[in-house]
């Protein structure tokens, strides 16, 4: 089971009421390489992967939910008191028509989240290579979001999230090495 802790993994500070930025950030909430996709991908693949890497998928999948909450916090703060006119001016008129200021799992273009974003192949190497690719794609998305944002406080939190993708990728790469052959491990040091 899971236990909720009433705190963010990393502080999220937002300097301006800026719904346009929220529209872009939602890519990491309900997009193909976003945090929801990451969490669900890893926590589903773990049922059919060698025991040696089940724990890693479980813990990284769990950390992704903490990142999902950070993205949600950014979107929430950027749109909290935005008026319908401000939402419309930010390109969120269509979103407002369906959801008011509520969050929803869709990407920056408004396409709803879909399970076709993720895969579980049942082949450990295929799955771990997908996971490594997912981390690198999420890292790239954070780069483009930092390029789009002029909010220095927000960029600080986005840089944290991008760095986490680097570490997760590193651990998945090590998991591949472990599955290649346990007794070869010492040689890699």
């Amino acid at each position, binding site marked *: 089971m899971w236990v909720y802790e009433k705190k963010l993994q*990393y502080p999220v500070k937002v300097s301006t009421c800026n719904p346009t930025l929220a529209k872009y950030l939602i890519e990491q909430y309900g997009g193909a390489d976003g945090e929801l996709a990451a969490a669900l991908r890893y926590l589903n693949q773990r049922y059919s992967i060698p025991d040696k890497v089940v724990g890693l998928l479980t813990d990284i999948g769990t950390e992704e939910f903490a990142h999902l909450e950070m993205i949600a916090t950014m979107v929430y703060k950027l749109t909290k008191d935005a008026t319908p006119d401000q939402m419309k001016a930010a390109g969120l008129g269509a979103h407002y028509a369906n959801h008011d200021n509520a969050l929803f799992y869709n990407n920056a273009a408004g396409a709803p989240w879909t399970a076709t974003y993720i895969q579980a192949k049942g082949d450990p190497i295929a799955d771990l290579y997908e996971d490594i690719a997912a981390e690198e794609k999420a*890292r*790239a998305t*954070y*780069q483009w979001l*930092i*390029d789009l*944002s*002029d909010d220095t406080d927000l*960029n600080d939190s986005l*840089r*944290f*999230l*991008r*760095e*986490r993708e*680097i*570490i997760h*990728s*590193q651990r998945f*790469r*090590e998991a591949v*090495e472990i599955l290649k052959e346990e007794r070869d*491990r010492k040689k*890699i*040091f």
Partner: protein
Amino acid sequence: MNRHTWYRTYRPYISPMDPCPPIKVKRYSTPPNLFVGFQPPGLEQFPALAALKAGTLWKCFYDPYYSLKELKRGSENETASP
């Protein structure tokens, strides 16, 4: 670790027929996880609060990304370093 270490550049072909002003040099990220291999034990760490700020406990993985706008602003007032 110098953050510029983790980026590479290339020069795309520029046609006289291109409508937008050309970007002469394109930059891409080659993060530390591509180079470390299986992490050896005992690598140098950040203290806890600095690790949180960096997003990693180990110095060798620290690779912050700044937009070109941020880098330009940073070199103007010399405050780009975190």
